[in-house]
């Protein structure tokens, strides 16, 4: 009964979405405010309906209702409750439901925080989001219904893929989807601006916080996915340039470019057409990511569906959304206007260069990801594009972008003087260069890449310090704390996010430069030493988990004769599908991770064992979280809070500058 309610709620949601996607947009075109007023209640109704559907599926999982095909396919009676609930997004159908649910959640958020938007703008935004929602609801209801019944009911479920039975898995997909789908708001803003032919600084100010929030979620989502791969796959790698990872990374690159481009549109009214294009790009790549990951074109834990009907549907949907919005862009973009002019050497110029580099990097990732698919589709042979390709293309494109990241925030808008910049930055550069050259020798090993990585990281931090010092000396206030408070939060946010990049670079550089790995055969009582740490293998014992049995190894780790920690890696056998899984044991630390995973049992109680010493590896994810924190700081800026406060007061000020229409 409950699953039918969920199914019915989805059908109703589709009806509402159709209304929401048509009437308000039409109303905005002809100026009919009654039609436009439909948008808000429709969006809220849709949110409620999809919420009902989502909860129904959750209920079916909680109650172990194996008469629902999807529940039977992705859970098991032995599976603990939290994993049963996480199994909602453990496979294709449910993750689409999650996608749609998050889309309606964003819609709901737009209805809450859009009182200061002109009515036409708001109805267009919600209308566009409604249309996207129509696509996803139709997809679910026609070819991948999560509520499909299995008659007769299965006695036992097939169980969730053991790789996904992990706390990281519970949080990673919702985070990632919040990011993906969050770009739909920026996309809807862009399409609404194209439809209205009106794109001024106020437009950028409205869409900025939305984009930043989505970007923060995406950053955290990707970091969590990477962390999950690190400890769950048992290979000690944190990024494989796997197509699935690339699928989430491409929207991030486009989104990062968008965040910066929006800053220019907001502050200087420039880059308008480019900003709109980036917004379309970021969302299109999110859709492409969903398609790549969920259609079964790519093969990995993420690829659930192999049904060609689904592939065709998503492909058609992609063609309509991307093709349609680009056509609209080609038609309407000239009306939006280019915005103010600026000199080559200026903050705009640097941001433009940064944008071009980010998009070029995105393009190279896209090419490496899609090229094998094209060849395969055209029957020209099977190839794979490995990590070396991405490493050798991505790094040279990002290095100059990161170098510019140091200079950009210090350059004046419109026109900056090179000698002046040189004067302000010489200390930062000198300090970074010397430290980057000397530090590797102190640590006992020098390679060009090690120095380059450290140089870039130090450069970002030192230029941030220079920028902050200048900012503090110019701001009002007597004491240091007064002056610090006078610096706007968006500026702090920028600094923090940039320093996050620096932390990330340090992590990558140090891991690549100093990690040690060794595959060894270990008898009980035998020791192996890597990175100065001695691992003693004390044999394995059998343990029983809720839905698995495992061999658990004991490793005593010591350094200079003193015990550092004891690690318990496991080799689990999940009973439902008789699937073996390696559960690595990690001793995390600020300066290094110690990582042990069990290979295979050999004769006489011996095991093949994989040992890693990974210096600074946690800085990689730490850097990502710091970046996201920077984003959060930026959106807590006074400007946005003022805008929200204004909302609560009953229409005191006229709505921000709708008069400045730029109709050609």
């Amino acid at each position, binding site marked *: 009964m409950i699953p039918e309610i969920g199914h019915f709620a989805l059908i109703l949601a589709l009806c509402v979405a159709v209304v929401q996607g048509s009437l308000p947009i039409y109303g905005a075109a002809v100026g009919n405010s009654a039609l436009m007023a439909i948008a808000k209640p429709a969006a809220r109704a849709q949110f409620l309906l999809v919420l009902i559907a989502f909860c129904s599926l959750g209920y079916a999982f909680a109650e172990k209702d194996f008469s629902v095909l999807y529940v039977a396919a992705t859970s098991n009676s032995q599976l603990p409750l939290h994993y049963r609930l996480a199994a909602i997004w453990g496979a294709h159908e449910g993750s689409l439901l999650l996608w749609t649910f998050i889309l309606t959640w964003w819609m709901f958020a737009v209805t809450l925080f859009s009182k200061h938007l002109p009515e036409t703008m708001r109805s267009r935004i919600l209308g566009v989001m409604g249309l996207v929602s129509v696509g996803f609801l139709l997809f679910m209801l026609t070819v991948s219904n999560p509520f499909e019944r*299995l008659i007769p009911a299965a006695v036992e479920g*097939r169980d969730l893929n053991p790789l996904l039975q992990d706390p990281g898995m519970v949080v990673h997909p919702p985070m990632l989807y919040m990011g993906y789908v969050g770009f739909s708001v920026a996309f809807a803003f862009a399409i609404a601006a194209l439809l209205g032919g009106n794109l001024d600084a106020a437009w950028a100010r409205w869409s900025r916080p939305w984009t930043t929030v989505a970007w923060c979620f995406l950053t955290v989502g990707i970091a969590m996915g990477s962390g999950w791969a690190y400890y769950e796959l048992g290979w000690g790698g944190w990024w494989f340039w796997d197509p699935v990872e690339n699928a989430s990374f491409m929207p991030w690159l486009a989104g990062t470019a968008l965040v910066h481009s929006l800053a220019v549109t907001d502050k200087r009214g420039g880059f308008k057409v480019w900003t709109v294009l980036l917004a379309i790009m970021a969302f299109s790549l999110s859709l492409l990511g969903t398609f790549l990951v969920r259609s079964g074109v790519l*093969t990995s*834990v993420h690829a659930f569906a*192999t*049904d060609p009907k689904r592939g065709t549907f998503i492909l058609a949907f992609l063609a309509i959304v991307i093709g349609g919005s680009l056509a609209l862009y080609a038609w309407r973009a000239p009306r939006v206007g280019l915005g103010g002019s600026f000199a080559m050497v200026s903050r705009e110029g640097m941001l433009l260069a940064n944008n071009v580099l980010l998009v*070029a990097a995105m393009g*190279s990732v896209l090419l490496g990801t899609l090229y094998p698919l094209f060849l395969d589709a055209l029957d020209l042979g099977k190839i794979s594009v490995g990590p070396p390709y991405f490493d050798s293309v991505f790094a040279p494109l990002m290095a100059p972008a990161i170098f510019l990241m140091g200079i950009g925030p210090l350059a004046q808008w419109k026109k900056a003087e090179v000698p002046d910049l040189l004067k302000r930055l010489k200390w930062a550069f000198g300090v970074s260069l010397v430290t980057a050259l000397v530090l590797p020798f102190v640590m006992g090993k020098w390679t060009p890449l090690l120095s380059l990585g450290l140089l870039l990281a130090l450069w970002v931090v030192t230029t941030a310090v220079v920028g902050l010092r200048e900012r503090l000396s110019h701001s009002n206030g007597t004491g240091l704390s007064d002056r610090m408070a006078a610096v706007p939060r968006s500026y702090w946010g920028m600094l923090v996010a940039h320093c996050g990049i620096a932390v990330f670079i340090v992590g990558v550089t140090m891991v690549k430069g100093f990690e040690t790995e060794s595959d060894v055969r270990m008898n009980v009582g035998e020791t192996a030493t890597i990175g100065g740490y001695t691992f003693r293998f004390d044999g394995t014992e059998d343990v029983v988990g809720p839905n698995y049995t495992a061999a658990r190894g004991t490793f005593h780790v010591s350094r200079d004769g003193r015990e550092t920690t004891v690690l318990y890696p496991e080799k689990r056998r999940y009973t439902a599908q008789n699937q073996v*899984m390696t559960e690595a044991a990690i001793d995390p630390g600020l300066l290094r991770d110690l990582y042990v995973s069990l*290979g295979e049992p050999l004769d006489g109680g011996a095991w093949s064992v994989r040992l890693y010493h990974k210096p600074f590896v946690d800085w990689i994810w730490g850097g990502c979280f710091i970046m996201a924190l920077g984003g959060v700081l930026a959106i807590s800026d006074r400007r946005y809070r003022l805008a929200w406060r204004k909302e609560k007061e009953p229409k005191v000020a006229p709505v921000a500058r709708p008069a400045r229409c730029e109709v050609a």
Partner: protein
Amino acid sequence: MKPRHKRFVFIGLGLLVLGVATVLVLNAFQKNLVFFFTPTMVANGEAPKGQSFRIGGMVEDGSLVRDGDGLTVHFVVTDTAKSVPVTYKGILPDLFKEGKGAVAQGQLGADGTFVASEVLAKHDENYMPPEAAEALAKAKASGAQESKSLVVPENKKDSL
């Protein structure tokens, strides 16, 4: 600089970045594309010598042998028509099993043994890497006598 000149400079810079990116991409492609060959193709001498490539198929039953060091393994990858012996030093992935699909990346040695640097079998139990599935399908299509009854599992949820 006049605005027009400035625009040219911008376009020039954009093209420069694009050019550099293209050079990097082509260069990296040249070095890092890994082609896939079926055991039949390898047996026919189609695979390149001294260059890394991938092979895929079934791990032949009873072919897995482990050396005394516990790390070096030998096994045979087959597409039911032809088979290729493979040597690998390292820890095999969890889902590597005899009678299941696997893909290996490495180089062909002088003695015809494939020396793998990486073995991929990181999917669920009844899943077949697409390359391996295709190798089997090709061998089947080319009329090879089926010595074993092979079932290529269709990774569909309907067949619970």
